[in-house]
Each structure stands twice: as structure tokens, then as C-alpha cells.
């Protein structure tokens, strides 16, 4: 079976020109694969480069070297060398990213923030909003808030809106950066369920979770990021 994600020897160093060109090595020799329906959890202490690796897989951070192979529309594309247009195409139909923080456009209603990825992929607005509503309900966002922009919501509510937005599409790869960080037990359980559902749909996932209990519930495999420590 072809891996959905196949990373070989990827590395990342920040060069801080404003601090006299100091080099900040983040990771090197990053190599692992993720199969369809598998959830790989990255482990390691804060600052070990877990989020950087997720951002490299999303094409948000550029790699210094190595290869980030993504199974995209029936072929492997190397995100480390892809053109901006190709990266956008990968994000549109293959890789989704759920960050800890919602970066919402001002004035857009919550329900539309959630429905947007589906609409962008050609789903009819009414159907997309219906799915968005179902997810928001499942994540315990009261219906009276759906028409409001999420910028005024609490941290936990914003995160749940973000999760709904991230889980609404049928993308074959999902990257999860602490999806349960500021949630209560009930909502954490919903996210665990959603992840289980994605596994059954053969979605390949890479996740960062600090909560041991959640990690135990969702991880099929753990990749220790300290083995990619650049400073070693």
C-alpha cells in the first residue's frame, strides 16, 4: 500500500537575520511514513519541533532539504519543492490542517467559516451549511451563535469552530496541532470520536497532543521527535 505521507530526511533551520544571522536549527533527518487510516502522534518536549514538522507537511514552512512526499490525486508530489500553485492544490483536495488558533476573517458568520472549505470544493452552499451545522451541534456550539463571527467567542469555542472547519472536508490527510488543548472533557470526547470516524474513512493523520489520555486513545503509532533533534 502506498503511504499517504512519506517524509525522507527533511530538515529545517531558521536563520534570524535581525539577531545577527543566528541560526536556529529546529529539526533534521525527519523521516517517517503515514498510511491511510493511521494516526501518528508526534511526541517530544515543547520546542522539539513538533509543530514545525506539521507546518512542513502543510507547506507552511519551507524545508532546507529532504523530501515531503504527499499522495495527491493519484500521484506523489514533493511538497519540499512544489510550486505555490501545487501547494494550494494539495491543501484544497488532500491535506487539511487544524491549528490551535482560529484565524478568522472579520465579519464572516461562524456557520460560513465552517462551511467554507466545502463550498470552495464545489459543494452547494445549502448542503455545506447543513453539514457545518451538524458538526457545530456535535461540538456543542449553540445554534444562536452560528450567525455571529467567531472573533468574540471564548478560546474553547473558537477552537471548536476551528475543529469543525478542519473536520468538515473529506480530505485524505489531516494534520492536528493540539486539537483538544483548551476543551473540557465532554468536548475532548467528541474530538476523539471524530478522529475515530476519520480513521474508519481511511484518513491519514499526524497529531500533536500533550494529554496522555487522549494520546493513548487516538495514537496508532508514536514518532519521537527528539530523535530528529537538530542540535544533537
Amino acid at each position, binding site marked *: 500500500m502506498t503511504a499517504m505521507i512519506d517524509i525522507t530526511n527533511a530538515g529545517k533551520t531558521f536563520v534570524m537575520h*535581525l539577531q545577527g544571522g543566528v541560526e536556529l536549527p529546529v529539526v533534521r533527518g525527519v523521516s517517517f511514513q503515514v498510511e491511510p487510516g493511521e494516526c501518528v502522534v508526534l511526541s517530544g518536549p515543547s520546542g522539539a519541533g513538533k509543530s514545525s514538522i506539521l*507546518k512542513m507537511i502543510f507547506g507552511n514552512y519551507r524545508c532546507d532539504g529532504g523530501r515531503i512526499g504527499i499522495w495527491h490525486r493519484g500521484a506523489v508530489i514533493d511538497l519540499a519543492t512544489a510550486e505555490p500553485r501545487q*501547494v*494550494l492544490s494539495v491543501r484544497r483536495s488532500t491535506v487539511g*490542517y487544524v491549528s490551535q488558533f482560529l*484565524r478568522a*476573517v472579520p465579519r464572516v458568520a461562524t456557520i460560513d467559516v465552517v462551511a*467554507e472549505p466545502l463550498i*470552495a470544493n464545489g459543494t452547494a452552499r445549502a448542503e455545506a451549511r447543513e453539514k457545518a451545522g451538524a458538526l457545530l451541534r456535535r461540538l456543542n456550539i449553540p445554534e444562536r451563535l452560528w450567525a455571529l463571527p467567531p472573533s468574540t467567542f471564548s478560546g474553547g469555542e473558537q477552537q471548536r469552530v476551528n475543529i469543525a472547519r478542519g473536520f468538515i472536508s473529506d480530505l485524505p490527510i489531516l494534520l492536528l496541532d493540539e486539537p483538544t488543548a483548551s476543551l473540557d472533557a465532554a468536548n475532548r470526547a467528541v474530538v476523539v470520536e471524530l478522529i475515530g470516524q476519520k480513521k474508519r474513512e481511511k484518513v491519514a493523520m499526524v497529531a500533536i497532543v500533550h494529554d496522555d489520555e487522549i494520546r493513548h486513545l487516538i495514537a496508532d503509532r508514536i514518532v519521537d521527535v527528539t530523535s530528529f533533534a537538530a542540535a544533537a
Partner: protein
Amino acid sequence: MAEPQVSLHDDQPLLVADHLGKNYGRLTACRDVSFALYPGEVLAIVGESGSGKSTLLQLLSAQLAPSAGRVSYRMRDGVLRDLAALGEAERRFLFRTDWGFVHQDPAQGLRMAVSAGANVGERLMAVGWNHYGRIRDTASSWLERVEIDTARIDDAPRTYSGGMRQRLQIARNLVTEPRLVFMDEPTGGLDVSVQARLLDLMRNLVSELGLAAIVVTHDLAVARLLSHRVMVMKGGRVIETGLTDQVLDDPREPYTQLLVSSILPA
């Protein structure tokens, strides 16, 4: 992460800049700029005053003749043509129909003394529309799309607020269904709250209409919200280019790092 969508169905570039440069005597305003813009793609050109970004926009939109290199544009018949070699009729077609140009100062892009309806209708008449009722209906529906009360259709834009003027300018530009829109600091002179509304509107229109756009801005937040790709200019050169969130979240060049780190947190 909210990001604009790009259509990837078209694999042929709409506009191609090839080693473009402009000198004023011994002063180089812009040099060696090359890139391709695809249908539905929004490119932001960022940099501080004097970086050459406005000169570049004028070169790209055929308002200024290059000293070096060339700009090619794919006409509606699918043929990529050198802008410098176009005939007068073809140039007119581009300026009146296939392109839009949104100026920072709406007074430059609007006729301030004639009604809002006429400002929008004029572009339609220029392309041969002559049925008054249809022109007025279309103008009125465009005012609605840009969130201007249609009761104000007969008022001249000099009676409008800054934000309304800018929205009217956008309606005037988009009414002919252009494929490419140039924007020069489109949110430049506006209050922050008015900016947010305008950005949201532009973002929706660009994605609904599948427009390609080249947006000159010194505001990185505008680039992030509107564009797929960004070019950073300094001293007349493009010093860094890439996917917008890559360049803004992982800037490589010293100058880009300075720009990104200079944003005041809200």
C-alpha cells in the same frame, strides 16, 4: 486557517512578466522582474514606499512602457500577446473590459460629479450597452453587491464616505466581468473598521468571480487575507517570493524578516 482559494483548472498563465525593468535616466525604479500569473490567482506585491512596487504595477498594466523586458497577456482568444505590440483597439478592450484598476484614491478611478449609477453604467456603455433600463438594473444590482444602498444610486460619489467610494470604484471595475484586476493600495486611505469590511468584500468577490488580481500593498495583513502568493520588493528588485503564508510565517530574507517583525500586534 482562512485562506483564499485559487482555481487550478487553467494551466496556462494569464499574464507573464519577463525580465521587466524601468529606468528613469540613471535611476532604476524596477529591475529584472519575472513571474507568471494564472487565472484566478491573486498576487500581492509588498514593500515599503520607494521599493518600486507602484512602478511595477504601472508596467504590468501597460500604463508605463518598460525600459527592459516585456509583459504578455493572454487575450480572450487564448493567444499570449506582448502588451507593447497591441493595437489601439485591443488596448482599449483591455482597459475598458478585460481589466479593472482600483486606485488608492477613489477620486482617480471615479467621476466624482456624476451619479453612482452613471459611474457603473459608463463602463457598460463603453462596451456597447445601450438599453437604459438594463444598464440601470445592472448598476443597481452591483451597488447591492458592494453593499451600497440603492437609494443612493442617483447621488454623486462626492457625497459618499471614503469606504463607500472605494466600494463604488470596485463595482465600476467589476461590472464588465474583467479577468484581471490591478489594485494599488486598495485599503490605503480608510479607517481600520472600514478596511476590514472592504477586504472581506473583495475577498468574496475575487473568489466568486474567479478573478485574477495583482494587489500592491504595504500592509501585510491585506496580503495575507487577499493573496495566494506574494512578492517582496526592495530597491526595485523582487527579493523574495512564494506562497503568502510561507513568506509571512517563514520569511527568509533579512528585509522580509524585518517587515514581518515590524507588524504591531493588535
